[in-house]
């Protein structure tokens, strides 16, 4: 086991390196995906979901944010998820663990529809 001092110096160096490296070159090991899941935002604007179609890897947390002056909901017809009414600025998140195609709509304005595709 290396001395404490040297371990601490290593950590500092690693942190410095990570901060300087462009994100493109950061390698995220498989084990780290669970610890730091992808977060993706779907905006609710002008009575529509943007993007209406979204593909994400398993484990992704999708957050819907309502930017309209009217409340909306996010409802899965298959009852996988269902938000409370989201007033202006409110958010709703759901983490998609399993691959599949998840359609959803606004329970108040059902012409508003979207799909999240979860694929490896």
């Amino acid at each position, binding site marked *: 086991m290396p001395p404490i001092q040297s371990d601490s110096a290593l950590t500092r160096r690693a942190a410095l390196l990570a901060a300087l490296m462009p994100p493109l070159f950061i390698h995220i090991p498989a084990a780290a995906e669970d610890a730091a899941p992808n977060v993706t935002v779907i905006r609710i*604007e*002008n*009575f*529509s979901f943007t993007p209406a179609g979204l593909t994400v890897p398993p484990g992704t947390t999708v957050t819907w944010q309502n930017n*309209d*002056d*009217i*409340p909306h*909901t996010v*409802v899965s*017809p298959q009852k996988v998820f269902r938000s409370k*009414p989201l*007033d*202006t600025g409110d958010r709703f998140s759901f983490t998609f663990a399993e691959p599949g195609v998840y*359609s*959803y*709509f606004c*329970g*108040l*304005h*059902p*012409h*508003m*529809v979207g799909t999240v595709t979860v694929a490896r």
Partner: protein
Amino acid sequence: MTIDGDDGPRFDPDGIDRRGFLECMTWAGTGLLWSVAAGLPAAIGMRQALAAPAATPFTFLQISDSHVGFDKPANPDARATLREAIAKIKTLPSKPAFMIHTGDISHLSKDKEFDDADQIIGEAGIPVFYVPGEHDLIDEGTGAAYLARYGKNAKGAGWFSFDQNGIHYVGLVNVVNLKAGGLGNLGDEQLAWLKDDLAGQSASTPIVVFAHIPLWTVYPDWGWGTSDGAEALSYLRRFGSVTVLNGHIHQVMQKVEGAIAFHTARSTAFPQPAPGTAPSPGPQKVPAGELRKLLGIATVDFVRGSEPLAIIDRPLDG
């Protein structure tokens, strides 16, 4: 149909008064005064209604989309404009027998919003019959709060019928169990009830049907229609006089199909754009001074005779 001027409405052979229709497509108005004459509805402007000596033995009133609790830029105080609408009602030359509220009483189904709405609307001092809008059913119990407050004598999700002064009234609910990609929805249980309810009525009885979302297809891209509305309307075709009153779209729009007259009322809270004229049907922010021309109520006069129902749209300002 709009009665505007001394000569009353003029109808095309298909029963549509084109001039009146176009006038009703404009924004201004606080309310709709409905008068039922000879079974068909007609709308007249608020100013005419206030001026008219009008032998109107029976009038009821429609109010809609109060959205109590709404405080966004399109109208920072929806309570204040509702108060103004109720004050307007109190100045009517003949007191309406009752009021129907075609939904979206509250903005977020909060107790405080319903409490305030009840207190303000109660100032009118006339009975009120409610049907819910989608904004009234977003409490934790998805409509339990609405039903506890307004649905004591109603069936299912809040539908009901009653008779007054020779007219049969039906309040329908088309804002529950909405399906992905769809429009407003009545559902099989309610349709079966409606069919049965109307079966006992003679074809000569004037029928007034009211619901939140338009029962006819106004603009499906914005969800302005009812997917099984045509089925409901098929039960109404045998009647000599049918008036369908809706809200939801926050603007006056009307059309006549045979003996069925459709009319939507203004909101008392905020206007929404005409179909397809904006990126979305969201609240429309208008220049200061314009808002109250676009909000309103409606009164309906019923006179048995050879004249249609007279609907008067009444803006808060104008």
